[in-house]
């Protein structure tokens, strides 16, 4: 294939994906006009370029479904309505969403991200499968596995087995898992990558990664990744503002909605952190033990050396305590339980000698009283807020 044809193929690909610019479509026109052969070639290229972003297409259809679902019905009753089954359950996904899609059309995930970040966090851990089925899990730490072929999802110690998409298809189905506040989940993806999801997080993942140039997943919230090595197929975590490309192995990402905290901590391996906007291309590569944080005010990426254990201990069900870190600990507890903790400044600023582990119980009150035992405070709940006071 010569360069020109390669270039045209790229253009046709963009055209099919709906990301071609005016100029690029005009260029396709010039090429089409060159010869009849080119017109035949166009049809062929179209077949080859068939939409790559299945996740985006699924999100598009979901939105259509939400809008017209009640009015769009098949002719015969009793036919399986693919995707419509979950209508009641997935409605929360699109309520109140405003999507600035075209402002950044290259960003194929903006729809998923916008929808997911606007949605309510459910009470129970919830999985939305690509075929529209919705499953809720009762446990406080849920374990979910996708098998190697991407054909089945195993839930909770293989108690439930669900058939999912077609592994041969180059378009994997897209699943979503939502973890409520106060709970965590553990996920094994088809490529062997392990993902721990922290409380209040959403994670979008395909049935399998076959025939895709990258292994791409979408995260809103906080997660710890242990990525299985595959140099030919980079693993990418897409969040609201950043794209994390894994060059090595395990790391923690925090990308909380409505928060200024966009950070990643690398435990081992190598991680590329890239700011997503077109105008502002900022990129850093983290070394083990480093933390990247995007400082929105200064519009720049900040890298520091940290003790990674403080950022990753939640995956093992506890928070690590350290001297003088009461303020940080309070933030972590607030995020985990989605609660508001009120502690007077003088208490926060008093150097404390906290150290050890604080277990993250499903019941937040257990954690509050443990904190009181450690610090010699008492707590009471006043109008949805947890107020800590000196004894």
């Amino acid at each position, binding site marked *: 294939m010569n360069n020109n044809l390669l270039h045209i193929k790229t253009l046709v690909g963009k*055209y*099919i*994906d*709906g*990301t*071609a610019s*005016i*100029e690029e*479509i*005009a260029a*396709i*026109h*010039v090429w*089409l006009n060159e010869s009849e052969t080119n*017109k035949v070639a*166009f*049809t062929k290229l*179209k077949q080859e370029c*068939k*939409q790559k*972003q*299945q996740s*985006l*297409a*699924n999100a*598009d*259809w979901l*939105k*259509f479904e939400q*809008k*017209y679902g009640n*009015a*769009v*019905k*098949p*002719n*015969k009753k009793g*036919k*399986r*309505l*693919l*995707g*419509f089954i979950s209508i009641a359950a997935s409605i929360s996904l699109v309520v109140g969403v*405003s*999507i*600035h*899609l*075209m*402002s950044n*059309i290259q960003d194929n995930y903006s729809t998923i991200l916008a929808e997911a970040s606007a949605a309510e966090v459910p009470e129970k851990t919830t999985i939305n499968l690509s075929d529209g089925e919705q499953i809720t899990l009762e446990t406080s730490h849920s374990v979910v596995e996708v098998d190697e072929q991407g054909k089945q999802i195993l839930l909770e110690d293989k108690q439930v087995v669900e058939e999912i998409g077609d592994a041969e298809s180059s378009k994997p189905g897209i699943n979503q898992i939502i973890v409520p506040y106060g709970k965590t989940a553990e996920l094994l993806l088809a490529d062997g990558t392990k993902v721990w999801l922290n409380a209040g997080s959403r994670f979008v993942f395909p049935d399998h990664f076959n025939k895709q140039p990258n292994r791409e997943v979408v995260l809103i919230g906080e997660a710890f990744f242990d990525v299985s090595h595959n140099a030919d197929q980079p693993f990418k975590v897409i969040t609201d503002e950043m794209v994390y490309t894994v060059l090595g192995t395990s790391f923690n990402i925090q990308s909380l909605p409505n928060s200024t905290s966009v950070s990643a901590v690398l435990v081992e391996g190598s991680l590329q952190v890239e700011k997503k906007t077109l105008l502002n291309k900022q990129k850093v590569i983290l070394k083990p033990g480093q933390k990247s944080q995007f400082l929105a005010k200064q519009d720049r990426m900040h890298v520091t050396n940290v003790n990674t254990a403080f950022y990753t201990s939640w995956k093992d069900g506890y928070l690590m305590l350290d001297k003088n870190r009461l303020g940080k600990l309070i933030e972590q507890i607030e995020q985990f339980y989605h609660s508001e903790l009120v502690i007077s400044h003088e208490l926060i600023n008093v150097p404390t000698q906290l150290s050890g582990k604080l277990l993250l119980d499903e019941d937040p009150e257990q954690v509050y009283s443990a904190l009181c035992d450690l610090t010699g405070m008492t707590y009471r709940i006043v109008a949805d807020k947890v107020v800590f006071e000196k004894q």
Partner: protein
Amino acid sequence: MIQEKKIAQQIREGNLEAFQEFYKSYFRRLLNYAAMFINQSDVAEDIVQEAFFKLWNNREAINEEQTLVGWLYRAIRNQCINQLKQQKVHEKFIEFASNYEAIDKVYKHDFELPLNDADDFYVWAEIKRAIESLPEKRREVYQLSKIEGHSHNEIAKELAITTKGVERHITLANRALRSKLKHLKTAIFVLALLP
């Protein structure tokens, strides 16, 4: 193509799964098209979704000679033109208008519509012609400013003229375009894009 015909047949028969597949494969392409007309992404998206919805509701009535996506394309184009008449036109619009024929031909070729479609929107060609008829320097300034979106300062530097000179060219270009285009029926919106 055989595959497409099969899907079209299934959609006509009311097969929702086939419709879903069809929706997924064409939505982005058509949204891109509508977004070239309409600068507000939510409005463009509404238009495309609405067209798909109409297609589903009218699936049995649509002429079999026509591809379904061709039908959609026409519906979306007409709706975009209607929408344009009601609102201010965005900056990029002139670029789109200048390339309208080329873009239209690509989509028509893709969707198997006749290239000499009678309901062509003549305004594009008129705008293009009007811009082309400007004196060379003025056209250059106008295109750099309105189509490529450069600032007056940038243009002044690029063309080695003063900022005042740039502003004068743009004022005169606007005046000339306004008078050249005022005969158009859709002048309401064409004029809206000439501040």
